[in-house]
């Protein structure tokens, strides 16, 4: 598809005034105001099947202009931007925030988020299927990531793996012995000494593992969900705070907490750099894949493909692995990880720490939907 609109996120004044005039005019009438309100929160993205139609490899390779990316800043490296193109990044701090931030069609071309949100993004018509034949670097990915079912739905590929990682239970080894069972985490010594990240998906999944539901961690029936949430309620006296990801190393450094779960990626290394003897155990561990997604209403689709292709190339993978300290999807880039994080075989590690599929969004399924997970978490945090 041609780069028919080269939005850069800003407008010249004439355009702004024109569009603002339209907006103001629309708002002026009470009837139209109702339309504005009706539009608020509604899903108005175009059909998700059209994004890549008419796109050829030649058009992708010669794409220019600006590509607008929404993702975590750690993944932003100059090596991902192809020559002659510019990348404009927006950032999100929580996984769910991307849903709100992509409400406006055309605001972003590419999105980076975990594959576990496939169902949510599909339901909201936010993403377009991806034609991997337009990505020459697709073949260079570790076969596990090319073949993973977690980026597929309805026979189409919807996401391109970019990095992956696994969660773990991190602890201060100078203060407590290595926790080997969930019961160890209930020790009176850990009362108000545990941190949880503000990520209901990650926390509830981890506690489902603790409850012995590792096979069904993302497909919990109401009774299983009750078991897991009861465990979390019983665990409440241990919890000091529910923090943002990345804050845990400061909590350890100040001795506010002795255990954090689930921690992820490079967290234990940063904690060690803060002078704490941080160790981790794979108790309750599982993996996730962060992926590129092409937005259904992308305005520079060819540019998005070109950018994405470059980002999964070895050079960009080496760079983004170094800055984000997340595991690469191209095996040769593992050397960019610090020694303490390197691993010999991706497939073996992933077999041990299985990737989780994400929670259903269907309210008529036998499983507790994602919405219920979120609402329960809200009440847990506020109680």
């Amino acid at each position: 598809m041609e780069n028919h609109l080269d939005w850069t996120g800003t407008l010249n004044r004439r355009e702004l005034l024109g569009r603002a005039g339209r907006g103001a005019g629309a708002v002026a009438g009470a009837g139209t105001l109702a339309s504005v309100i009706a539009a608020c929160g509604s899903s108005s993205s175009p059909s998700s099947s059209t994004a890549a139609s008419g796109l050829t490899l030649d058009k992708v390779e010669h794409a220019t202009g600006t590509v607008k990316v929404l993702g975590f800043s750690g993944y932003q490296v100059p090596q991902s931007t192809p020559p002659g193109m510019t990348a404009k990044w927006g950032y999100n701090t929580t996984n769910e925030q991307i849903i709100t931030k992509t409400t406006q069609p055309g605001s972003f071309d590419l999105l980076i988020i975990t594959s576990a949100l496939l169902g949510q993004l599909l339901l909201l018509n936010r993403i377009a299927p991806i034609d991997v034949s337009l990505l020459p670097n697709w073949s260079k990915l570790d076969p596990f990531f090319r073949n993973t079912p977690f980026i597929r739905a309805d026979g189409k590929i919807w996401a391109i793996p970019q990095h992956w990682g696994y969660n773990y239970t991190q602890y201060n080894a100078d203060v407590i012995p290595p926790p080997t069972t969930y019961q160890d985490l209930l020790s009176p010594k850990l009362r108000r000494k545990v941190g949880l990240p503000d990520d209901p998906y990650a926390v509830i999944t981890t506690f489902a593992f603790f409850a012995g539901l590792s096979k069904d961690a993302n497909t919990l029936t109401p009774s299983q969900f009750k078991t897991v949430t009861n465990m979390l309620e019983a665990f409440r006296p241990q919890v000091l705070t529910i923090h943002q990801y990345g804050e845990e190393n400061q909590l350890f450094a100040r001795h506010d907490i002795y255990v954090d779960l689930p921690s992820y990626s490079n967290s234990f290394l940063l904690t060690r750099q803060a002078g704490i003897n941080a160790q981790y155990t794979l108790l309750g561990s599982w993996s996730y894949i962060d992926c590129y997604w092409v937005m259904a209403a992308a305005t520079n689709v060819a540019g998005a493909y070109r950018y994405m292709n470059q980002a999964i190339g070895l050079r960009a993978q080496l760079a983004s692995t170094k800055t984000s300290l997340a595991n690469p999807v191209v095996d040769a880039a593992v050397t960019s990880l610090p020694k303490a994080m390197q691993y010999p075989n991706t497939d073996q590690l992933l077999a041990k720490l299985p990737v989780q599929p994400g929670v259903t969004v269907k309210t008529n399924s036998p499983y507790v939907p994602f919405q219920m997970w979120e609402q329960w978490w809200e009440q847990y945090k506020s109680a």
Partner: protein
Amino acid sequence: MTTYVPTSARIRLTRARSLIPPLSTVPTAVYIGVLLVIPGVSLILYSFYTSGFYTVIHSLTSANYHEVFTVAVYWQLLLKSWAVGLIVASIITVCAFTMAYAMRFSLGRWGPRLLILVMATLLSSYIVRIFAWMTILGTNGLTNTALHDLGLISHPLSFLLYGYFAIALVLVYVYLPLAVLPIYAALQGIDPRVLEASRDLGATRLQTLRRMTIPLAMHGIRIAFAVSFIFAASDYVTPTLVGGLDGQMAGNVIQDQFTQSGNYPLGAALAVLLVAGFPVILGGLAVTMRVLGRAGARIPRRSGRRHHPDWLTRATDAASRVPYAGIVTGLLMVFLAAPLLTVIFFSFNNSPVPGLPFEGFTLHWYSSVFSSSQFLSALRTSLEVAGLAVVVAILLGTPAAFGLARRRSAATSLVNTVVFAPIAVPGVMIGIALLTTLDYSGIQGGVYPTVAAHVLLICPFVVLVVRSRLTGLEPNIEEAARDLGARRMRVFRTILLPLLAAALAGAAILAAAISFDELIVTNFTIGAGATLPVWIFSQARTGLTTAINAIAVLLFGGSLGLITLTALLLRLQRSRRLTDTLLAEA
């Protein structure tokens, strides 16, 4: 001599005129009204809609309110938030009055300088300063370490961080500088000779304070209390960072319902109830104060001087000579400066964690900041947004302040409500509503929509500062100039503008500080791009490093430089005016 008898036609005309708002307030009121009517109306409508999956279903229901009132967690959170707001606002108002009083009446020429210092504490990243509080209050933090080393405690005090104590402390810290400003402006309007007269007539310091100073400054005190209450009760960043699991507030749940859980109608119902509580509580307080005031006035006072024993008189005299306001102000300055000093100190820490432990001196974080293209890009965007927003807000806010300060009409209170309404609407709701409106209008998020949003947020503060200054200026001066033949424009240029220069500079600095630090609304309107706070917050995901301290120090240094430059320019302008006057007289 003829007696003026108003005709019924004249009375009607006067009444009709009183219903027309001052013309100069109209652009601001319309701007804010239009930009607020959307979030306001959508907030109310959303609260009656049914929740879909990160959407709303347009079938009306009262189920959201039912949920708020029946799920104990929610209504308890509302009560807790209002209670925290009231406690924090009470502490802030007392502290702010003490500081403003000392600056105005006790500290002489150091007063205005101290005010600048107080405002300067606002000029580095709000998030980074809250992180600094965590370094101060943490288990092995500076406070616990100091108390332990002094032998005052054997175990760390665990209540300092993560709970309502920490929330209240940090909220007082965050909003105290904002509250000092309106009270100081109100005290500026009090002629010190009035207070001297009160003392000459035999009133004690305390009586003068109670019967003269406080009533005369009541307008500023009320503003300070109301603003602190609203901001503290609806804050969500502070409880998120220092509240822990035991210290949550309604702002957190509202924010989460819009950005995490996707139940917009429930978030809206909570927001409507939270906001609706503000006028009810503030109105209730005002009525209570009035009733108490009347009851107090009815208590018969003992006539004549009371005879105290000599020792008591001497002790009272000695006590009254203690500069309480100055001492308390000094302590409060330490309180306000502590996080900033912590940030500065730890910006040289050779450790990736932006706090304890201190592992050696390095300048590495400063060089890393300047070599970060992400930082430089975000800084550029922030400067662009803040610069444009401040100019527009001054242009809109100053005439509005004139209208509100110089003309009273029935419509004035309505305009007043509209102008200050953005303070009462939760930022997250403004952000969401603007995002969806941009979507509908086909305008992409970016710098200009963010500027429009920031103007909405900072305009009330510009009006507040300029109006407070104008209230303290004698209108007779303007009238005298007009009587002597000067046109309105000349009066404005030669009399009002010089008198207002400092207030305008202060308003611009305050507005720039708020705009530069704004995160909640910007997060939704900036689109593909990032201002500094958005970028800093996004850094948290992969672990905040000490570089954020360096960024905060650089912002603080830059802002102080700007203030110094402004002060020098104002001084230069004043000396030029003096020279011109002398030359003219010669």
